[in-house]
């Protein structure tokens, strides 16, 4: 069966390509980007070189090259062929230009006023200030705010400008004028230093464990055990109803909660006669916001536990229930001694799986509160998204976002490996029976 090996690889190849492109590459790139200052300002691909105001600041402060910075920032005016031609094209007075060439050719001036004084000194000087300005503007020479694709081009241009650079200066200049992203540890320093990080972390832990305990396992157990003690008809009905939130598209599901909570919504209308002022219940206080966030996520999360626990309960032999009833067990004792021991593994599984998914998913929070009010419900995953991908006018901080993500990716990989350990992996990899 020599071809079977190749067939296997052939059948696996498409999946492999997807995995490499959209799992392995992103994992590696998240790692790489986390150590860069990539943002909308630096662009994603390589950058260019530019002597700009913001580049001169570090040149002074970090390298102490004030003199060089001054020189580079200067604009000078030189009467040369190029400028004369440009002036002619711009509509400068022809006679004035001819005279300018003969009197001042190759002369430089430190600023525009000096050039204009020179133009005014001409016999054929233009009659209007505007005429003078049209001409003077054409002779400006500067490297500032000009984009160069390579550093060599920038150096050539600086040399043309008449500035000579030492090797140290070249190195410093290469550093400060690069506009693309560079590698840095700054993201992680920021992460540790910012008080927001701490708050987000506490939010995350609170959110994950509360939802997990109350709903994803707790309420899921309530649902599966209570439907177990029902005739099949109602049991199926309730399971379907509680599966609905998982099946409903998130945008619509959260919309229904918004309808419940907004200031002219259901809760406000119902509660107003009882003396509660109408308000947006979801966003009026951090406590209420959390209640809604946990309900919204918890009800979706409970359905998965419900299904898994239900099928585990169904797998318990009926004779076990009958025997315990004959032995005189109450329902509570039956739950405690027969059902719960059988659910140990499913509960462990759900706990691990849902910890990961709660830790990393932010869809419902984004739609419901967007982290509000005032960042009260901003969890780690959402913060990652907000920093890197949601643009409210500010720059998208890809690098910082990736660094935040990296923390989750590392946790994700570790927990996934634990998950792998918990399964009967050996059984899983039993060799094929056809050789």
């Amino acid at each position, binding site marked *: 069966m020599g071809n079977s090996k190749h067939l296997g690889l052939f059948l696996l190849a498409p999946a492999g390509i997807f995995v490499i492109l*959209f799992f392995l590459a992103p994992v590696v790139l998240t790692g790489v980007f986390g150590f860069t200052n990539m943002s909308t300002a630096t662009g994603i691909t390589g950058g260019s070189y530019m002597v700009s105001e913001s580049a001169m600041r570090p040149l002074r402060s970090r390298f102490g090259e004030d003199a060089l910075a001054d020189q580079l920032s200067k604009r000078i005016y030189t009467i040369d062929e190029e400028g004369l031609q440009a002036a002619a094209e711009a509509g400068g007075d022809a006679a004035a230009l001819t005279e300018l060439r003969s009197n001042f050719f190759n002369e430089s001036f430190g600023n525009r006023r000096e050039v204009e004084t020179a133009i005014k000194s001409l016999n054929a000087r233009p009659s209007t200030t505007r005429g003078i300005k049209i001409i003077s503007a054409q002779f400006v020479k500067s490297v500032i705010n000009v984009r160069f694709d390579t550093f060599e081009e920038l150096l050539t241009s600086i040399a043309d400008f008449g500035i000579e650079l030492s090797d140290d200066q070249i190195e410093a200049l290469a550093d400060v004028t690069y506009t693309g992203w560079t590698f840095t540890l700054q993201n992680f320093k920021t992460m540790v230093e910012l008080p927001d990080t701490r708050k987000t972390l506490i939010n995350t832990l609170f959110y994950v464990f509360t939802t997990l305990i109350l709903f994803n396992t707790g309420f899921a157990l309530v649902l599966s055990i209570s439907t177990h003690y029902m005739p099949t008809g109602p049991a199926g009905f309730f399971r379907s109803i509680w599966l609905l939130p998982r*099946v409903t*598209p998130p*945008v619509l599901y959260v919309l229904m909660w918004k309808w419940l909570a907004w200031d002219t919504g*259901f809760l406000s209308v119902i509660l107003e006669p009882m003396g509660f002022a109408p308000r947006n219940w979801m966003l009026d206080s951090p406590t209420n916001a959390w209640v809604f966030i946990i309900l919204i996520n918890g009800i979706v999360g409970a359905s998965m536990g419900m299904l898994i626990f239900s099928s585990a309960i169904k797998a318990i032999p009926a004779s076990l229930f009958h025997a315990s009833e004959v032995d005189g067990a109450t329902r509570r004792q039956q739950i405690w001694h027969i059902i719960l021991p059988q659910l140990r593994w499913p509960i462990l599984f759900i706990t691990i799986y849902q910890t990961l998914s709660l830790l990393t998913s932010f869809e419902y929070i984004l739609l419901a509160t967007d982290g509000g009010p005032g960042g009260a419900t901003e969890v780690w995953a959402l913060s990652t998204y907000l920093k890197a991908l949601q643009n409210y006018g500010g720059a998208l901080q890809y690098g910082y976002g990736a660094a935040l993500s990296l923390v989750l990716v590392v946790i994700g*990989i570790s927990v996934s490996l634990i998950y792998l350990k918990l399964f009967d992996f050996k059984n899983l990899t039993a060799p094929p029976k056809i050789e």
Partner: protein
Amino acid sequence: MSGNYRTWPTLVFLSVLTAPLILMYSYLFVDTITNTPPGSVIPNEFTLEHWRFLTETIPGRPSIWLATWNTFVFATVTMVIVLMVSSSAGYALSRLQLPARSFFLGGIMVLHAFPTVTLLIAIFLILQMLGLYNSLAGVILVKTALELPFGIWIMKGFYDTVPWEIEMAGIQDGATRFQVWTKLVLPQVKPAILALGIFSFLSGWSEFILPLVLAPDNNVQVLSVYLAALIADDQNFDMALFKSVGVFYVIPVIVLFVFFQNRLMNIYSGGTKG
């Protein structure tokens, strides 16, 4: 279930817990065809005006039909690719001799548990680099990739239940491994393909974050992003309109859910059981 315990207490208990959910879903549908006076929760008139978005394009938004078409293309193409790739890869992992087979299997399991949404930023940048940002093709590829570990896992599980002897018999009858797969084994896992297909379609239809981040433009907008943008627009707050768009959006989901409920229940739980 047995005759020794009374059932009505559990029925009452669960009915009380379930009532708010039923209320929310009921109002979702009722509000799309009625008007309710302010300060009341009881509708007082029947109307179809909330559904006018079907014929009039809402200013600043793409046409609902374009968004519907985009959503349909997104969900269908995702489903087809997921089915093709998972059914072939699942078979290879379940049945064929592979170099580093246990590595692949472990990899799929890790990916299955791995929270892919953490990779969003990197994926966003990759699509930018590939020039697939703001295209349906790009977001389809990403969605497919993220669905694959689950799909492969499900398919592998189903292939595992097909008796080896069927394959051995096929080989003895002179079939190649490829023929064994297509002619003998695939027909045995039809239920799995149906279930996974419905699951992937629904998953694509409901997807929000990926299109939001990777393809937000009006001409490639899907219904989830359309609806979210509508809701986020503070200038035109119209809950009944939102709900109507939402109901329009959710119709295929409800239909599939009603018809294939049991299969979906299996896949929602079975897929993650390992």
